[in-house]
């Protein structure tokens, strides 16, 4: 379901394409906010199946979605961004999270793939541990989000 918009640099020779000078990113949007994430942290994209609410004290983790024979927890990334997603017009991003698969509700715009030169990715540790830094993908300056550890770092005791 991902739409390939590979950077010209990825169409070079095989030896150069395999060189780790390129970071593969997926660009998607949540409540209109454009974000980038590392491709290896994403397990797939599905139509949004709707949620089962869970009365939860965990910040931003308050529901489940049905997935295959079981359910996945949902991280409400829109709520973290202080925005709202219209679930009826959404997609489900499956994240390879360190605690197990996780679902995120994203906008209906199909995510795009980008092969970005490493020099266009700036890693920085800021106040929000869920943000890895920023990058330039498809000509846009975008925040780079740590999907695999979403919600993990912020819960660690100081």
């Amino acid at each position: 379901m991902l739409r390939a918009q590979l950077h010209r640099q990825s169409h070079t020779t095989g030896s150069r394409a395999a060189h780790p000078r390129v970071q593969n990113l997926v660009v998607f949007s949540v409540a209109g906010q454009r974000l980038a994430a590392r491709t290896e942290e994403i397990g797939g994209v599905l139509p949004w199946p709707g949620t089962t609410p869970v009365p939860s004290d965990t910040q931003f983790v308050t529901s489940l979605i049905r997935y295959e024979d079981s359910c996945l927890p949902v991280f409400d990334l829109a709520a973290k961004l202080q925005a709202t997603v219209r679930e009826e017009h959404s997609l489900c991003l499956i994240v390879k999270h360190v605690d197990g698969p996780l679902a995120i509700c994203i906008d209906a715009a199909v995510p795009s793939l980008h092969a970005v030169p490493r020099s266009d990715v700036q890693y920085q540790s800021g106040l929000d541990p869920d943000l890895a830094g920023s990058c330039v993908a498809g000509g846009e300056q975008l925040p780079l989000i740590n999907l695999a550890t979403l919600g993990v770092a912020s819960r660690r005791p100081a």
Partner: protein
Amino acid sequence: MSLRGQRAVTISSGHAIRFLITLIGNSSVALPAHWVRGIVMPGSAGPDGVATWAGAHYEPTDLAARLKVKSRDRSADTRLVLYGNEEASRSFVVDRVLGLLDVERAQIHPLPTQFRGRERERLLGFFVAPSCVALIANPFWALELPLRPQALEMFAIRFPEREVEDGAPRLPLPAAAMNEPVPISSGTVR
């Protein structure tokens, strides 16, 4: 009142747990059925809110508020569930009783690790029922008893290795349960 249905998922072997599935607000909440002592109309409780059934008293507890679920307004479907064991008993209002379901142990999933708050005390996990995802309320928490690990295991019913067709009317109760049948009724209390 009769329950809306009792169904069995396919049993391949091993253990299952029988749940009473209720609706509280928008959440399907399942409780191990072995401690269900009765299901009565809300008006059956006394003015002090205490329901009496078969000589036992059931103090009211607001399970919806404790679960942090917003319950619906009272309706013709609202019921009072009488729940207890040898140590404690409580009654609580549910918006609807959906029925009994025998769920194979393997079909019961713990809450995913990403849920890391006090909800892990309140909810033991979930299972996918035919029409919903049911959240399993911790029966010890519901009765305000000390919590214990592996709380669901004591409710497991062992079945012989055989296939039970979907929709089978009933599954064998364990010996302990047959000695102490669990009344499920909406008859008048007191």
